[in-house]
């Protein structure tokens, strides 16, 4: 009975490990292997055509890849920072409300629960140059008399996509920061007031250090499924028109499924995986540091 000898904790986490291994680890190993081959979906025999690091070299040399990579980083940086600041602002606004706060909090959570693909369609509709809400409103108010090509122009399309992403995910920050604001003991804040702080000073020196861990939790959670933004982009522009909004994930999807170059797509997929893992670990590290700072760690 080998079974009896295994420690209890191991038996308890075993199901999780088996499922994750089967669904995520094994496919990833497979894709790691295939990223060194010239595998094409349409020609299964190419799976055994070992080409070394050719795919990676190709990616590194490819202008399209670097453009998408840079755009992804830019997109993430702008979106995450905006979400954090807006979330912080929203949380502060809501925390100061005394009546009807529960309702405001619920409203605040709604976008978070929308399917990303739905958010994509929703904003594709709203930013539609012909029948969209934004253009209709601008034209009715007389602010613009031509149809603004929100999803066609490069800058405007990036703006629209970031707007949709920020709309969807700001509430993650707002909700967690709000929870942080409520968990702050009242006393130090009052002590700061008595110590002569202006509202800004008590925010800067007392409130902010206290909510830092919560900001990092939100960052960590967000970076865990930051690729949710793929759904939005795929629906709104699918990287187009003419690759103007191409980000890493849409590039991978197109290379794999449309061009059927699985090996190459998997190689780029690995880059995106490491990017996501890097962000996640970075924020978990930050979270731990902030916890130690506040003496919250065990």
């Amino acid at each position: 009975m080998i079974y009896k000898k295994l420690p209890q904790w191991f038996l308890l986490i075993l199901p999780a490990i088996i499922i994750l291994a089967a669904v995520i680890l094994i496919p990833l190993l497979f894709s790691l292997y295939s990223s060194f081959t010239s595998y094409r979906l349409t020609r299964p025999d190419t799976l055994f055509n070992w080409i070394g690091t050719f795919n990676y070299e190709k990616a590194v040399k490819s202008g399209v890849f670097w453009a998408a990579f840079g755009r992804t980083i830019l997109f993430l940086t702008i979106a995450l920072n905006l979400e954090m600041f807006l979330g912080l602002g929203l949380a502060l606004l809501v925390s100061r409300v005394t009546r009807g706060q529960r309702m405001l909090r619920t409203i605040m959570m709604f976008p978070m629960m929308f399917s990303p693909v739905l958010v994509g369609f929703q904003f594709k509709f709203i930013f539609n140059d012909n029948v969209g809400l934004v253009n209709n409103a601008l034209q009715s108010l007389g602010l613009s008399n031509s149809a603004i090509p929100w999803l066609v122009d490069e800058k405007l399309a990036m703006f629209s996509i970031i707007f949709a992403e920020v709309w969807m995910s700001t509430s993650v920050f707002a909700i967690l920061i709000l929870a942080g604001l409520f968990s702050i003991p009242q006393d130090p804040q009052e002590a700061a007031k008595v110590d002569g702080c202006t509202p800004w000073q008590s925010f800067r020196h007392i409130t902010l250090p206290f909510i830092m861990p919560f900001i990092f939790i939100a960052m960590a959670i967000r970076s865990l499924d930051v690729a949710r933004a793929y759904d939005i982009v795929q629906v709104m522009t699918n990287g187009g028109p003419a690759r103007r909004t191409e980000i890493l994930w849409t590039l991978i999807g197109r290379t794999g499924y449309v061009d059927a170059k699985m090996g190459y797509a998997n190689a780029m997929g690995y880059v995106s995986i490491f990017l996501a893992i890097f962000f996640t670990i970075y924020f978990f590290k930050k979270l731990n540091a902030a916890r130690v700072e506040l003496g919250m760690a065990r």
Partner: protein
Amino acid sequence: MNINRLSKLKSFFLKVSHHVTLFIAMSIICIPGLWIVLNSFRPTVDIMAKPPVWVPRGLNLDNYRAMFGGAGEGGVPVMQYFTNSLIISCTSTIIALFVGMAGGYAFARFRFKGKNAIFVGLLLTRAVPGVALSLPLFIVMAKTGIIDTHFGLILVYVAMNVPFTIWLIDGFFRQIPPDLAEAAEIDGCTRWQAFWKVEFPVAKAGVASAGIFAFLTSWNEYALASQLTRSTFSKTMPVGLRDFTSEFTINWGGMCALAVLLIIPALILTFIVQKHLISGLTFGGVKG
């Protein structure tokens, strides 16, 4: 007295600007959703009208009728998609909860070597972008023949949800003092009984919110489902939204109606879960 009056004026001004800003923020959050709901009741002529029709006229249920009418406009089998979504989300949630409870309990109650490394490792699997995962999964599943089945998608969603479920449930179990289970064991329970009779009832609310969160993730997921399902018999609703688009036109009215059907369960569940969810996330993370 002058100083006093100035302070008063200042706080009044702050109050007004606070309310105005809050109103604007809430409008930005609400309007896109309401816009979808409104358009699901409008006839296509109104949606496409130029110049735009602002005051709604002739709201009707045509889009819904078409949607549920089987081969109505566009002929999208919405009920089939709804059933698929429901079966896949519910089953994967229940399985993820059991796996997550076992794992979360282990992390909350046992000390073992490499605990933190394993924990972070589990969480990191969640960070793998769906589209990057979908490529190899597509091939593996095609080879094993479970592509385009409920089972295949359920398996994937369980794996997607397990890390997060473990994180949340671990946080909830940690809030329960270990004395509770120890007392029960002294009272004559086995560890198994102590768990189900004492610890589980206390953590129930937390487990429920982890469940709702897992459900919503599966319910809303698109990147994987769009590649791993092809036929009406396994497509989920988020994938179904695509059916309203053809190469050059989009049936906005019909899509909005499906969107409403997709949103409603999410909204109801959000409302139920909001309180527990926040405490779960923060306890898991901050008190770590």
